[in-house]
């Protein structure tokens, strides 16, 4: 992952999302300013209804802000049409969902190849890159398995492989450990730590302090606003969990 780009990965300027109108209007996100630099590892915390999921959808171009400006890797997302948004989602964003969201009836390999297929990558290269991504998440021996033949932790690792296979500028993870047991949770968090250590920008939405402790920066939301923004570790360098580990070794 390069940090050669001079733009921040994510730049939100007074972004709001409003559902309904008039008296019944609900401000899910109310004027959020947020800048995420390359290589950062951001945890967005908050209770349900705090607007963190809506924020995630806006960041992932799955939803549009009612007001405000969202620049993704320097691109003003308001100027993108439907087709270009698909393109941006495909090339610049990697999604990891709470419920894995793998395509049923498709093998782990096919699931990981899918974003590359949509990107128009040739068959041979696609396979090679998908296998590399699966190897990266430690599932090299499960490539032919269907999602139903994998454990929750394994499915989520396939989802992570699918998210990183296109080399996106940011990985967006929405409660990635919400459906996992503690052992699998630890595995996935280790995986995110490793990815960030190798330079990948990660934004993770969670309500678990244990998960947030892995991030370099913790943003807490309340009623659609940013309540606190705390830096736990510098943008450049290893994430806190790995720093502690290496510190012990040293």
């Amino acid at each position, binding site marked *: 992952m390069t940090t050669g780009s001079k733009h921040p990965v994510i730049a939100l300027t007074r972004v709001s999302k409003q559902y309904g109108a008039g008296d019944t209007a609900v401000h899910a996100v109310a004027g959020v300013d947020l800048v995420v630099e390359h290589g950062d590892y951001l945890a967005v915390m908050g209770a349900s209804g705090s607007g963190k999921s809506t924020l995630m*959808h806006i960041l*992932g171009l*799955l*939803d549009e802000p009612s007001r405000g400006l969202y620049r993704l890797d320097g691109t003003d997302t308001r100027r993108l049409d*439907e*087709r270009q948004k*698909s*393109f941006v*989602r*495909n*090339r610049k964003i990697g*999604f990891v*969902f709470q419920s894995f*969201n*793998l*395509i*049923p*009836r*498709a093998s782990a390999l096919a699931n990981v190849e*899918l*974003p590359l*297929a*949509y*990107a*128009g990558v040739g*068959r041979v290269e696609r396979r090679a890159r998908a296998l590399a991504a699966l190897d990266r998440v430690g599932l090299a021996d499960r490539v032919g398995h269907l999602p139903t033949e994998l454990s929750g932790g394994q499915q989520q690792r396939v989802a992570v492989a*699918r998210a990183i296979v*296109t080399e996106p500028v940011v990985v967006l993870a929405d409660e990635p450990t919400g459906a996992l047991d503690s052992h699998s949770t630890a595995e996935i968090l280790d995986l995110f730590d490793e990815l960030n250590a190798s330079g990948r920008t990660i934004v993770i939405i969670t309500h678990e302090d244990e998960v947030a402790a892995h991030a370099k920066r913790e943003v807490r939301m309340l009623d659609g606003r940013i309540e606190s923004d705390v830096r736990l570790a510098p943008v450049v360098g290893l994430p806190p969990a790995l720093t502690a580990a290496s510190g012990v070794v040293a």
Partner: protein
Amino acid sequence: MNAGQTFRFAVSGVTANKLRSALTTLGIMIGVAAVIILVAVGTGSSQAIQDSISRLGSNTLTVSSSQGGTGGRGGGGGFGFARPRAAAGAASGAVSSGTQTRTAKLTLDDAYALTDQTLAPDVQSVAPVVSVQSAVATYEGAKHTIGTFIGTSPSYLSNDNDSVQAGRAFTDDEYSSGRRVALLGPTVAKDLFGGDGLSAVDQDVQFNGVTYTVVGVLTAKGSTGPQDSDDRVIAALPGVQATLSGYGNLSSISVKATSASTVADATSEVQGILNGRHHVTTATADYSVFSSSSILSAVTSSNQTFTVLLASVAAISLLVGGIGVMNIMLVTVTERTREIGIRKAIGASRGTIVSQFLLEAILLSLFGGLMGVAVGLLGSRFTIVGVTPVVAPYSVALAFGVAVTVGLFFGLYPANRAAALRPIDALRYE
């Protein structure tokens, strides 16, 4: 996203629910097969009729009285066709003495008049025909009710494209001398004599109790539809008149033109002669002239109507099959809403989603179409209600093309509905 990948996605979509896809395919299959088979039946029956008409000979005309009625009392003469001169006076006298309300009477003299080489240069041969209703043939206890019994002259055989497979045709001498000689159709011969019926030659057979000598057995013509054209007897006219039909009017006159190209000329010559003899014009004619080509065109047009009707009924079932495709695609889209959301989240464009679901719909109808063509071609090999179906290539292409188009058309709406889903809504869908 290349075409091959889209195709593989579509195939996996279709095969995901095999029973449902098979049932949908079945609807299209039945539609396509129905179109092919029914058009084949229509084509087959019209071809059978065309064949039987062309067996009459393309240059044969049949003159018959407009108001029907054979075996009337008036007119006619007790003379053989070879000696009509002597009968001319009596016969024409009877005709011309008729009142304005007289029914048409075709006489031996009419037939003889048509042989005039000066007035009718395009007429090659003429045969008077008298048919005997409900004649029964018996031979040593065997009994057969004859379908068609006619008395005529030797030239009838060439006019009617008939030939003799055993024995011989009766001669002009036998005709002139009023001998009771007959040719049996294969069905009659087999029924009376057993086996192939060829032993009938030179045997004596009773028709309605009158003894005739069988001189030959006709070659089989085959049956057209419910009618057996081999269930017939052809006998020499003078003998028939003397014993079975009486000396009444002719049923019809068979006329052969010199060639197929002179049929129209021959028709007008025949009309000219008969108009003069019957004192009528072509518009008020009391007889009618049919050529096999005129019958053919009438039959062909009515058959086309019939075929179109059959095809439209079949087309409706094809349409119903198409609605089945649409229904199943809508179910599929609803069922896979979440999958569509996932695909959109990881970068599938609207066009990609449309093409995936559209291709699924087309695959269903394409497969159904192929199966339908196979079943249709197979089904057309069997005889259906007495008709041997003849597969019309256009119907195969049409049915198949329509099936695929139907898939395309009915797949468009579900595919667009899938593509129009907002990824956020699709992902939230449970």
